């Protein structure tokens, strides 16, 4: 009987400890995006200010950085500077795009006037693009390679070094 109890106990405890051990150091709040490794979802949105529609399909062939943000998001302020510097540094090698949702155009324009505009910012009024990209909160950034495949997603604000590391994965080599 003692042996039976021992076996049942081991059958319950050993897998539990194994699962706990394998997940040590993993952020339980981090959800892996199912979009990574898949072709980017193409969309067409209007640019803030100019009112011109911008179609993602027309940007194929160039690595893309798609940043979801909003003016009510505090970390987005610091991150915007990082993205502006990155876009300036990369020039035409990488196309940066900002997608703003749940916001007002006048606020967005004021934000861009104050914090710089180096790349197009698009308005996602009903949040459909954000939903299609599985955005949980802002800021979130997707990195797309020249073949149009989403290679990475970053949740939270980017800093210069993390942006450079992501750019290296989409374009190849250190930047």
């Amino acid at each position, binding site marked *: 009987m003692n042996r039976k109890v021992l076996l049942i106990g081991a059958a319950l405890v050993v897998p539990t400890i194994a699962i706990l051990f394998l997940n040590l150091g993993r952020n339980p709040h981090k*959800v892996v995006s199912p979009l990574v490794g898949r072709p980017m*979802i193409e969309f067409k949105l209007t640019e803030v200010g100019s009112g011109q529609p911008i179609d993602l399909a027309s940007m194929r062939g160039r690595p893309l950085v798609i940043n979801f943000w909003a003016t009510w998001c505090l970390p987005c302020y610091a991150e915007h500077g990082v993205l502006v510097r990155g876009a300036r540094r990369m020039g035409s090698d990488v196309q940066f795009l900002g997608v703003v949702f749940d916001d007002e155009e006048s606020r967005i324009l004021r934000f861009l006037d104050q914090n710089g505009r180096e790349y197009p910012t698009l308005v996602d009024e009903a949040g459909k693009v954000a939903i299609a990209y599985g955005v949980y909160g802002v800021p979130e950034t997707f990195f797309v390679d020249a073949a149009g495949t989403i290679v990475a997603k970053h949740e939270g604000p980017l800093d210069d070094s993390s942006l450079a590391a992501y750019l290296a994965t989409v374009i190849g080599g250190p930047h």
Partner: protein
Amino acid sequence: MRRLGLLVALVSLVAPALAAQEVRLPSPREIVGPPRGRPLSGAELQEKTREVASLLRCPVCQGLSIQDSPAPMAINMKRQVEELAAEGYDREQILAYFEASYGEFVRLNPAMRGMNWLVWIAPAILALAGAWAVRSVLRRGRAAAAAESAQPDAPPPPDPDLEPYLRKVRDLADAPTAPTERS
């Protein structure tokens, strides 16, 4: 002429706003196939929307469905659920549509597939194991009580490990006692 000027001014004001509504995304049909149900409207549509929205997790909330959340993101998602239901997409198709973007995490109830079966059957297995354990303990207790009542004063069975010592003690007890010298 003045009216025409007003009309032009109005159009120039409204046009950017209308243009801003333009969003072109892949059709849900490309993601989950053609609608399996019939297009809904009115109360039926509201009911379907409520049902599906209560199964989808609000991505920016803590454990709330998009049906219960007042967050703008949840409201946008619920609006999309309504659009999909109106087009005739069924519950599973709508859930799969959101899952394609957010992953399985967006489902409040994990789908019954793969390792998820464990989540569904583990409680039943644990309940059965618990019932079995309780039953065996009770049976053992009842058997012990029955044995005790059958032989109330019977001595406990001899322990074979203690037998040599017992024999030695018995031998010593049976042996004649030798006279001892007093100092």
